[in-house]
């Protein structure tokens, strides 16, 4: 129980609870995530109200209503929450990963820590373990709030299949946040100047989380016209597919570009399991897995690579290069 890794882990957990910046960041991130669920719920509520007033107006005019009632798929309300974890969660993770190294470098405690008889990788392992615990706790709390919010709004209890899908999406979120934390921890250890590590981390974040997915979206022909190109051309789905078959080279390039962003893999996998992507709504876990295994593999690979780098380069000879 007193292995150096656990000693580091316990110290980091205690530190995190006393660190105003870390608490503030996690609270801020959680707030926007929860807020997005509330906003989505309020948006849905507005749709229902609009529909009811429309029905009333039709009835009083003596006409039969021919608009179908808005359908609620509770997990679809989590789209904003996942997007916030993707954008804001990753930046918070970068800051936390950075601060794990920065605080030791700033206080000049690195030499002291490495002068103790502990294994080379135990500091990195202990620190990352503590973050794993923190992100787990955050995800569990957020998951509970999500579940409670969508149940309250929809007035229905999500089915066990839906709960399992939510748990899977939350597990992806944990992996995604851990990956960014470990990446940033590695970066802060490598850089000679801490502020440079932070700026480089932010540039990578900007490119991976925002720029590449944005380019992918912009290149989608259907997104070129407000409301959708094919809708404006009055073309249905089979015809759309027949037309797009002639542009497979362009679509492959677009897809390959999107594949370079790990955030896109996280988004695709989570959207599929939560049924946010219509194609996977109410589908079986097996069917979703058949389409999503590549994305999930990318995500796991990204996490493994980041953790590997963080531990391999978190040793004395790397961190004390010019500490």
């Amino acid at each position, binding site marked *: 129980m007193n292995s150096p890794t656990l000693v580091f882990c316990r110290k980091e957990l205690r530190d995190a609870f006393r660190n105003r*910046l870390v608490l503030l*960041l996690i609270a*801020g991130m959680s707030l*926007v995530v929860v*807020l*997005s669920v509330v*906003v989505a719920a*309020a*948006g849905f*509520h*507005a*749709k229902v*109200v*609009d529909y009811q007033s429309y029905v009333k107006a039709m009835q009083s005019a003596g006409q039969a209503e021919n608009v179908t009632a808005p359908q609620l798929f509770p997990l679809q309300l989590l*789209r*904003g929450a996942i*997007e*916030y974890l*993707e*954008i*804001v969660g990753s*930046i918070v993770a970068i*800051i936390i990963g*950075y*601060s794990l190294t*920065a605080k030791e*470098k*700033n206080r000049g405690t690195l030499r002291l820590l490495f002068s103790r008889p502990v294994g080379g990788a135990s500091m990195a392992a202990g620190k990352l373990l503590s973050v794993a615990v923190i992100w787990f706790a955050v995800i569990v709390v957020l998951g509970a709030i999500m579940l409670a919010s969508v149940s309250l709004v929809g007035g229905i209890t999500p089915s066990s299949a839906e709960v399992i899908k939510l748990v899977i999406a939350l597990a992806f979120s944990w992996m995604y946040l851990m990956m960014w934390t470990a990446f940033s921890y590695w970066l802060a250890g490598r850089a000679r*100047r*801490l*502020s*440079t590590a*932070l*700026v480089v981390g*932010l*540039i990578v974040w*900007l490119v991976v989380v*925002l*720029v590449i*997915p*944005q*380019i992918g*979206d*912009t*290149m989608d*022909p259907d997104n*070129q*016209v*407000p409301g959708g*190109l094919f809708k*404006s*051309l*009055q*073309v249905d789905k089979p*015809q759309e597919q*027949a*037309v797009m078959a*002639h*542009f497979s080279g*362009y679509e492959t390039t677009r897809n390959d570009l999107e594949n370079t962003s790990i955030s896109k893999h996280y988004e695709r996998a989570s959207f599929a399991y939560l049924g946010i992507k219509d194609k996977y709504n109410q589908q079986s876990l097996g069917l979703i897995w058949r389409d999503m295994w590549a994305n999930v593999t990318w995500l796991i690979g990204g996490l493994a690579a980041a953790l590997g780098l963080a531990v391999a380069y978190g040793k004395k000879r790397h961190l004390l290069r010019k500490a």
Partner: protein
Amino acid sequence: MNATRTIVRQEIRLAFRERLAVALLVVFLGMTLASAAIGWSSHHTVMSVYQETVLQLGRDVPNPFASAPALEVVTNTIIYIVLIGALLAVVVGVRAGVRDRRSGVTDLVLSRPIGVRSYAAGKLLGVQAWMGVVLAAALAVSWLSVWLISRSPLGVADTGALVVFFALAWIFLLPFSVMGLIAGTRSRHESTALLAPLLIWVAITFAIPQLGTAQNPTAMLNPVPSAASTTDIFFKVNHAIFQPISITEHFKHMSGVIMRLPDIASTAWVGDVLSLTLVAAFSVGVLLLTTRTSLRRPLYE
């Protein structure tokens, strides 16, 4: 005035020597070029998709791109200014604010016959002059790439529109430079100086607009701004409260008006200009409140 001019010149020279600022400039210009290339590639593909559709359907459908404005191929630049331009402004602002404190020069500068306000104004003008250089370069890149893509140079009206768009971008980026400068001249830690304005930017760009529009955060990455999508009172109230400070949305809308993008209401631009100008003026006002005491605070990494 002379002392302010000296600080301005010094800031521009230092920005050119700062590897990070130059790296961000290269990234920004690269993205401007990429924006044109992406615009061209998607435009070209969509036209082919349209022709293929007409061919397969065997009937004529209206060409959705028949009346596309000339500047449409560079619309992605709007979003790169919101993303990369803002980050560039923050980083350059923070570095300018922190530099003298880090090298211990602040006391020396303040011991010269120059007021704190002239010093702060000089720094801001220097940073904004640097941003002007960046935007002028991006303007040239955009103009040349539209020429290359459409195989004819832009007309006077479109060139004018492009110049006005980059001038608007300069005003839009000003509060971000100022935030960087304020954080750089006041924070105790260089890292906090970078993080504080960055988090405010994340809030302004991704969190605040959703409260008034019910849009998802990735919708904010669309160069075309999101409209208030519902008549619900919750969103109406939020929209009224948060709209004035949603400067990224104002910038996107105003840019759409300038570039004559389709589906942009060209009437409501006065609010955009007012909001962007007021936020810029307010931020400059706050910067000018800088005191000797805050400048002389010790700085840690």
